[in-house]
C-alpha cells in the first residue's frame, strides 16, 4: 500500500511524519524530535534507496554534524562532518565591501544523487558545493564553483551566504544547477568541474547594477523532472521562469499580491502547475494582510489563483522558508509546507483544500516528502 513520509527540519530537531496514501488529516503519526535541541536545516532521502536519509544537524556552539539513517529515520548514525575548502580558500566580499575569508558555517541543503544512495551533494554557508561518494563519511569540495571567477565578488545576504538549491538533471548527470544567496544561479555541464553564472534576465533594482552577472538574491529554483530545461525561480523580488536551462529568464509574477517569497514548487504530474507563498517584504516577512495563502499557477506563471481553503485567513504572521515546501508523487498530487510558527500544512488534492498535519513544532526550516510504495 502506498504511503508518504514527510521529513521536517526545525530549529530544535527533526521530525518524521508518516501517513498512508489517503493522507487524511487525522491519519498522520509524528515521530521525533530527533537530535533534540539542534538546528536541523535539512533532511532528505535518497531517490535510489528511500530508507537512506541524510540530515544536516548544526549548532552555533558545536558546529556541524551530518546524520545518516538506513531505516527511514528510525535510527541514525553520525557520519563525516569535515567540510574543508579546497586549497587556499580565498575571499569573498564582506558586508562592508572588504575581502573576507571563506569560512564554513553549516550545511543548508543535502541533495542525494538520483542513482546512488552513497553519493550526496551538500550546499553550504559560506557558499560552496561539496560531494560525498561514501555515504557522507568524507566530503570533497567541487571547487570550480567558487573558483570560476566571480567568487571574490559574492556578498552575503542577511541570512548568510548560503548555497541552498541543488538541482540534478534527471537524464544528464553532467548538468547541475545551484543557487546562492546572494550571488545568483550557476550551472555546470561537466558534473561540477566548471561553472558559469546563469542570471541573464534577472533584474534586481536594489543592487548597484540591476542586471549584473552576479549579485542577485535567488531564494529558490524548482524543476519538473520531465522538463529539466524549464526552471522556475522565486527571487528576493519577482517570480521568474527559464525555458532554456537558465540561459535566460523572464518574469512571471503576474497577478501575485506580492512577488516576494521563499519557496517555489512544481506539481508532480503537471509541469506547468507551480506553487508559491507570497510574503510581504522588504522587512516584514509575513503573509500580506495576515492571510496565509498559497498561490497556484496552472499556466507556468503570470496567472495565479489564491488557495485558501483550510489555511488561516486572519491574524497569521508566520513565514515559509525556502526549503520548507515539497510535493509527493501520488495522484492527486500532495503539497506540503511548514511555517516558522511550527505548523506543517498538507493538501492531498493539488492545493484545493488544506489542513495542518501537525501544528506546534519548533519553527520549521525544511520540508521534504518521500512517496513510498
Amino acid at each position, binding site marked *: 500500500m502506498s504511503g508518504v513520509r514527510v521529513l521536517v527540519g526545525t530549529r530544535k530537531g527533526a521530525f518524521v511524519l508518516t501517513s498512508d496514501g489517503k493522507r487524511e488529516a487525522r491519519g498522520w503519526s509524528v515521530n521525533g524530535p530527533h537530535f533534540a*535541541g539542534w538546528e536541523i536545516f535539512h533532511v532528505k532521502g535518497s531517490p535510489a534507496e528511500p530508507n537512506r536519509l541524510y540530515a544536516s544537524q548544526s549548532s*552555533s*556552539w*558545536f*558546529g556541524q*554534524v551530518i546524520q545518516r539513517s538506513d531505516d527511514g529515520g528510525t535510527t541514525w548514525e553520525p557520519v563525516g562532518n*569535515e567540510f*574543508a575548502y579546497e586549497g587556499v580558500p580565498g575571499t569573498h566580499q564582506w558586508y562592508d565591501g572588504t575581502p573576507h575569508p571563506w569560512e564554513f558555517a553549516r550545511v543548508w541543503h543535502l541533495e542525494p544523487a538520483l542513482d546512488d544512495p552513497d553519493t550526496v551533494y551538500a550546499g553550504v554557508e559560506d557558499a560552496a558545493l561539496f560531494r560525498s561518494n561514501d555515504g557522507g563519511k568524507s566530503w570533497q569540495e567541487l571547487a570550480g564553483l567558487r573558483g570560476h571567477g566571480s567568487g571574490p565578488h559574492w556578498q552575503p545576504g542577511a541570512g548568510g551566504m548560503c548555497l541552498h538549491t541543488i538541482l540534478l538533471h534527471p537524464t544528464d548527470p553532467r548538468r547541475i544547477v545551484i543557487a546562492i544567496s546572494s550571488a545568483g544561479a550557476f550551472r555546470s555541464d561537466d558534473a561540477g568541474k566548471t561553472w558559469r553564472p546563469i542570471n541573464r534576465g534577472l533584474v534586481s533594482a536594489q543592487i548597484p547594477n540591476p542586471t549584473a552577472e552576479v549579485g542577485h538574491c535567488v531564494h529558490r529554483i524548482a524543476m519538473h523532472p520531465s522538463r529539466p530545461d524549464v526552471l522556475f525561480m522565486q527571487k528576493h523580488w519577482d517570480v521568474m521562469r527559464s525555458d532554456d536551462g537558465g540561459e535566460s529568464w523572464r518574469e512571471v509574477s503576474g497577478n501575485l499580491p506580492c512577488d516576494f517569497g521563499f519557496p517555489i514548487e512544481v506539481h508532480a504530474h503537471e509541469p506547468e502547475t507551480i506553487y508559491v507563498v507570497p510574503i510581504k517584504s522588504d522587512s516584514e516577512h509575513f503573509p500580506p494582510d495576515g492571510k496565509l495563502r498559497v498561490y497556484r499557477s496552472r499556466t507556468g506563471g503570470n496567472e495565479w489563483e489564491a488557495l485558501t481553503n483550510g489555511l488561516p485567513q486572519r491574524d497569521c504572521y508566520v513565514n515559509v522558508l525556502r526549503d520548507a515546501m515539497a510535493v509527493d508523487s501520488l495522484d492527486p498530487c500532495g503539497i506540503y509546507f511548514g511555517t516558522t510558527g511550527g505548523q506543517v500544512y498538507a493538501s492531498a488534492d493539488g492545493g484545493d483544500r488544506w489542513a495542518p498535519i501537525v501544528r506546534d513544532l519548533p519553527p520549521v526550516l525544511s520540508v521534504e516528502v518521500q512517496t513510498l510504495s
Partner: protein
Amino acid sequence: MIRVVLPLHLRRLAQVDGELRLDVEGPATQRAVLDALEARHPTLLGTIRDHGTKRRRAYVRFFACGRDLSHESADAPLPEAVTSGAEPFVVLGALAGG
C-alpha cells in the same frame, strides 16, 4: 585518570551518560585531553575544536577548579586537581541569553 564533563548535546552525540574518565598519555594538557576524548569518541571531532586548526570553537568553554581555562594555551599543564582526578575538566556551551 582525568574526569571530563560534557554538555548534554555532546553526551547525546557521543552516546555517553555522566562523566567520562580518560587515561591521557604524557603531560596532561587541554590538547592531550581533547585528543584522548576525540580518539575514544570520533563523533565529537569538529564539535569542540576546529577540525583543521584545532582551535576551540567560539562558543565552547573549558572550566576547571572554579577557573575559566578557555584562553589558556592548549599545551599548558592542567591544574593538579584535574590531573589527579579530584576535579573534572568541564566542557560547556557559552550562555546564549534570550
